[in-house]
């Protein structure tokens, strides 16, 4: 069934892609812990892409923010910032599309622990690599999109499930 869909896709393709596209997503970061289990954290993602590359290619950049807050007497607050370079390839199906992107990224995590008298914080940075599979639909210059993002860093494989919207501007192709 999937093969039939892929074979049929070129005939259904539409190429009215604006030049630039920016948007945001709300999602759930399933962050893998040392024990292997994953902790869900709320995540926000901002995206910027340039779609006027040859063929179905697009250049993408994304920034993701997630946080965890715990504790009452002793409070901890952890922020996760990720910047990803995401070249993408799109498969249009009428007004819908699938997109697959992969690329390197940089991850910064800052944790702070505080009580009434003292506080302590630490910043950790590491390189990572990620891939994303998204599905969306075009409504004029607006795109609605949902997707799964997998990010690998040494000892960790995180997953983000999110949905959002983006708006395109510039001349359509």
């Amino acid at each position, binding site marked *: 069934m999937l093969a039939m869909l892929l074979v049929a896709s070129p005939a259904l393709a539409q190429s009215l892609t604006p030049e630039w596209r920016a948007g945001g997503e709300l999602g759930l970061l399933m962050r893998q812990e040392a024990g292997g289990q994953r902790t*869900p954290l709320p995540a926000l993602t901002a995206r910027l892409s340039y779609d006027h590359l040859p063929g179905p290619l697009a250049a993408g950049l994304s920034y993701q923010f997630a946080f965890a807050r715990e504790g009452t007497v002793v409070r901890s607050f952890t922020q996760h910032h990720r910047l990803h370079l995401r070249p993408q390839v799109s498969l249009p199906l009428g007004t819908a599309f699938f997109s697959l992107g992969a690329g390197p990224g940089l991850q910064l995590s800052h944790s702070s622990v505080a009580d009434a008298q003292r506080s302590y914080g630490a910043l950790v940075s590491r390189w990572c690599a990620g891939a994303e599979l998204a599905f969306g639909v075009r409504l004029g210059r607006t795109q609605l999109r949902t997707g799964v993002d997998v990010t690998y860093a040494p000892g960790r494989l995180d997953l983000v499930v999110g949905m959002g919207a983006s708006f395109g501007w510039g001349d359509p192709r």
Partner: protein
Amino acid sequence: MRTLLLTLALVLCGPAAAQSGELLSPPLPEPEASEEQPALPEELPAPSLPPGTARNRLPDQTAEVLQPGEGQFNLFYLQYSRGLLPGLQLSAQLGAYLLTLVNLTAEYQIVDRDELRASVELGAYWFALSPVLAINALQVHLTPRVTVPLGGDFELNLAPTLRAQVLALPGLSQNVRDLRGEVSLIRYDPFGAWMLQGRFPLLTQQTLHVDELLGQANVTGSLLLDDLDSWGVVLFRDQLIGDTAHLRFGLGYRRRPGLLLADSLGNLILQFDLYWR
């Protein structure tokens, strides 16, 4: 008491896996012109299709709802659904009433465009014997659904579900919230539809409070579980039978064994259902 609680849990979990469907009569064959039989004049009115059109053939999987006055009965889960107003459908699981679970589910289609259809489903189950047995059981679920035509006979459907359960006994209370997702790729044909469905539970959060445990009073604990390992995939065939019925058969795999009959049989997902409209 444990048996009763297990039964309640099974019934509460049932609707999430419940399948309901809708019937579409196969398209009428087009009259063919031949030398012996002259072609029909063009001004003849086209035969009218029954109310269940291709768009709402599988309303339990898509963001479609039954039309006003249209009803269907789901045999396996004893669920009756009826279109009440344009865009609004109500459902009740009649079998649950035998266990005194008062339940009602409403689905409203909020977007109806060629590129995209979307609906929101809200449902609740309540254990009606709560005042007598001092057991409070309530479940509420919220399911937005999105249907995107992919061209041809294909559709893609997305349906995340947020569910909350409250169970309260004397000296004990438990709250459970879970989030799960469902992706379905459907291909329609004149005799029914094929459907490939992926299911991925994301997380479960449980909070338990007991008045007394091992000599401690007012003990509260919270547990957040990652359910991703319980993903599953199912291939369904929805086959039309005559003008008033269709059946659905599904065979699939669930990586972690789930609730017996509600989720899977071990790792095997086996589903069968029959529908009348």
